[in-house]
């Protein structure tokens, strides 16, 4: 009876039937057969029938056991089939993955090649524009200088119209000089090597705002700055960014009553958004994309002065920090210039 206490009753199913056969056989042999008094009487035949019954019980046990075995084999086959299918799928996936990797490698190599080409041509272009701008400054200075000499030495020999024309030439030469300065400035921005340090943005913005007091003149600007987080970046570049954005805001809001400029920031997932908002002239949002291109201007020179280089410089510096720039506005409803910088862990921050 040990098997009754131990586990796995299905494994002992045959024993169960064997025990029943044994009981039947024992009863037949010990009770029915001794009750037989002669051949072929009731006890004799019943004992014979019980013998057959015991055989049938053993046969049943065997067949049930084989049925279990068959089902088990069926399950194993099914499981094997599923495993084979899964293996095939995995092989297919691995092959596809390999193909994809090869494709990515090829594309990366292509991209790398194109990037290198582009970088080389960009450098060439920058070097070219730098040298051209640099070389153009000397003759412009000469023009400016000689016109000053002419006005000083021969001013009395020239009539009013002559003096006016020389003034126009000098003004245009100075404008051209200013344009060249800006181009040089833009070119330097591209060549500038970043030296990241932790920047106190609050102090930097306040300092820049203070330095722009001359541009503000006597106008009472309402300047609002919220608390800005520190940022790890190149001080020169970030200062230039703030300077250009605040300078723009001052310029385009000078006709508002009162001119209001707001500086804000917002921390998002792994990035920081900085905003400069004004209540100035604004611009047509259709042209927002053109704003950050070199020499692109949305206002006439007689309305607002400038060369159209400032925002291009901003874009270049922000891109060098791995960020993006955006501008949103509507005509006469002020403008919001923003830049998003990737958050870089400052030393000491966990």
């Amino acid at each position, binding site marked *: 009876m040990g098997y*009754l206490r131990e*586990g796995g009753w299905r494994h002992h199913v045959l024993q169960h039937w064997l025990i029943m056969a044994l*009981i039947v056989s024992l*009863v037949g042999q010990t009770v029915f057969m001794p009750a037989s008094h002669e*051949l*072929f*009487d*009731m006890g004799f035949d019943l004992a014979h029938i019980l013998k057959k019954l015991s055989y049938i019980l053993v046969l049943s046990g*065997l067949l049930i056991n*084989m049925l279990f075995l068959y089902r088990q084999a069926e399950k194993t086959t099914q499981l094997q089939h599923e495993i084979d299918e899964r293996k095939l799928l995995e092989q297919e996936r691995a092959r596809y993955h390999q193909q994809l990797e090869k494709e990515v490698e090829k594309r990366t190599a292509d991209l790398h090649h194109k990037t290198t080409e582009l970088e080389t041509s960009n450098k060439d272009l920058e070097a070219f524009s730098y040298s051209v701008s640099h070389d153009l400054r000397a003759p412009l200075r000469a023009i400016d200088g000689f016109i000053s000499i002419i006005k000083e030495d021969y001013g009395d020999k020239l009539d009013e119209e002559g003096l006016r024309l020389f003034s126009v030439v000098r003004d245009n030469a100075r404008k051209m000089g200013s344009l060249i300065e800006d181009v040089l400035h833009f070119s330097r921005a591209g060549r500038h090597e970043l030296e990241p340090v932790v920047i106190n943005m609050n102090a930097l913005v306040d300092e820049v705002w203070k330095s722009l007091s001359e541009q503000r003149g006597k106008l009472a600007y309402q300047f609002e700055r919220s608390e800005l987080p520190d940022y790890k970046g190149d001080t020169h570049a970030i200062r230039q960014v703030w300077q250009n954005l605040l300078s723009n805001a001052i310029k385009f809001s000078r006709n508002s009553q009162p001119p209001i400029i707001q500086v804000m920031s917002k921390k998002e997932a792994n990035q920081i958004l900085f905003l400069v908002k004004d209540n100035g002239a604004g611009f047509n949002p259709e042209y927002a994309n053109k704003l950050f291109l070199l020499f692109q201007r949305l206002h006439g020179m007689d309305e607002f002065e400038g060369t159209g280089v400032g925002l291009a410089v901003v874009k270049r510096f922000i891109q060098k920090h791995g960020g993006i720039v955006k501008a949103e506005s509507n005509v006469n409803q002020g403008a919001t210039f923003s830049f998003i910088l990737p958050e870089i862990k400052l030393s000491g921050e966990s």
Partner: protein
Amino acid sequence: MNSIVLVNKSKQRLIIYFLLTVGLMFCFFLLKDIPWHSDAQFHTLLEAVATFLAFMVGVVALVRYYSRPTNSFLFIGTAFLGTAFLDGYHTVITSTWMQPFAASLPDTLIPWSWVASRIFLAIMLYVGFLATQYEEKMGEKGRFNPQIVFFAVASFTLASFLFFILVPLPQAYIAE
């Protein structure tokens, strides 16, 4: 959870064995006084069925053994094949056609040749039980070589057969 199911199953089985024994005893007391009397042909028919059944059990057990070998199925298979042989002998020797050629009277021959297969089967199943225990203890090393078992069982079958043929047997039914 499994152990609870197992205990329930064990209890169920004990109840089945008990009911089977009680049922058989009840049948015995119910049927023992019925004035039934068959004849040698009916006995031959019953024994032919028994031979066929024993043969079937032997074949099925050996098929099962060759699909997944264990000592228990090897011994059950060979034991029932031997039993089928002895039952077959019992069927033939006790049939009405063989009575003119039999050395003993049916009163002696029928009970003793019936007992031959019973004893043979009981001994073989007991040996099979021991072999199963041995295999459980030893693992695959405890598995018997089927050829040796076949030979041993065939020899034992023949010995049983010869014993009941050659040894003079006493009368099975004693007149009251």
